């Protein structure tokens, strides 16, 4: 065989070898791509299936929330009046008055009153407790009364000192009943006792009330009328 023919055969073998190598490598890479796409398609199908009811559910939630907003806006405006309602909302959420109420277009043009000038301090306190944040930033200019972490303790500050801060120092409620340690005699008239209560078994004679030695104030008044006669 001539040398040129051998060289040609070698060249063809090289070309075929290169074709086989690269095409097999490409096939392997394409198989990897196919597997990856299968996984991706599975994930996408999962996303589609899981997100299918989201639209309907979110729509329903929005409808319910819209109904709630309509209800609360209507109730607030009905009870407080449009101007005060806008003022209260402005006090709770500064800047919200500019947006107005959804169902009351006139609320955008209402001049919101300063909430501190309209309502008492107690109302503001209640509003602050509900808001968990400083309200009516301009008036009054104080911190939020309610601490979210210790909300129950903060609420005690609203009541007189002693009852809430030191409940253990308060006298216990009286024990009532036929065998109670202190026997109470029913009074003839409200606020006036026939005699002061005496602990059972103490041996003390029941003391007569100074206000009513022999009866209630009506009987005493009638007795005095007789004496005058």
């Amino acid at each position, binding site marked *: 065989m*001539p040398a*040129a*023919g051998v*060289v*040609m055969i070698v*060249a*063809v073998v*090289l*070309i075929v070898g*290169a*074709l086989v*190598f*690269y*095409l097999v*490598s*490409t096939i392997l*890479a*394409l198989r*990897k*791509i196919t597997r*990856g*796409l299968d*996984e*991706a*398609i*599975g*994930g*996408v199908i*999962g*996303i589609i299936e*899981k*997100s299918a*009811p*989201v639209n309907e*559910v*979110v729509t*329903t*939630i929005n409808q*319910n*929330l819209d*109904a*709630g907003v309509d*209800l*609360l806006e209507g*109730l607030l*405006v*009905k*009870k*407080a*009046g449009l101007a*005060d309602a806008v003022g209260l909302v402005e006090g709770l959420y500064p800047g919200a008055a500019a947006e107005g109420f959804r169902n009351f277009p006139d609320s955008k043009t209402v001049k919101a009153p300063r909430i501190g000038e309209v309502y008492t301090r107690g109302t503001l306190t209640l509003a602050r407790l509900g808001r968990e944040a400083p309200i009516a930033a301009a008036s009054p200019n104080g911190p939020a009364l309610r601490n979210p972490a210790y909300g129950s303790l903060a609420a005690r500050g609203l009541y007189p000192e002693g009852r809430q801060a030191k409940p253990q120092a308060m006298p216990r409620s009286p024990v009532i009943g036929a065998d109670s340690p202190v026997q109470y005699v029913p009074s003839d008239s409200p606020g006036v006792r026939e005699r002061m209560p005496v602990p059972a078994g103490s041996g003390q004679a029941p003391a007569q009330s100074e206000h009513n030695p022999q009866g209630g104030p009506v009987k005493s008044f009638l007795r005095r009328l007789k004496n005058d006669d």
Partner: protein
Amino acid sequence: MILEWIGDAILLLVVLPVVVYLLRGVLNAANSIVPSVQQIAVAAQQGSRDLDAAALLLTTQDQVVKTIETAADYGGSLDVILDDAR
């Protein structure tokens, strides 16, 4: 004879390099797609897992309905016990 050598030269110096170049380009392109596809697959699976909580929207829906009903009852009571604004 000379033509045969010329043909051999063309095969070895032109055809073989061109074939290798083209096939290599195809292989590189295929290999470059593989990591992207794998990343897409991972992202799709993670996205699918993230949507597992979407089922809780049904609970949220029920809770919203109950909350609105409670607010409506409360509002009705307030409507009764509070006077309307003048």
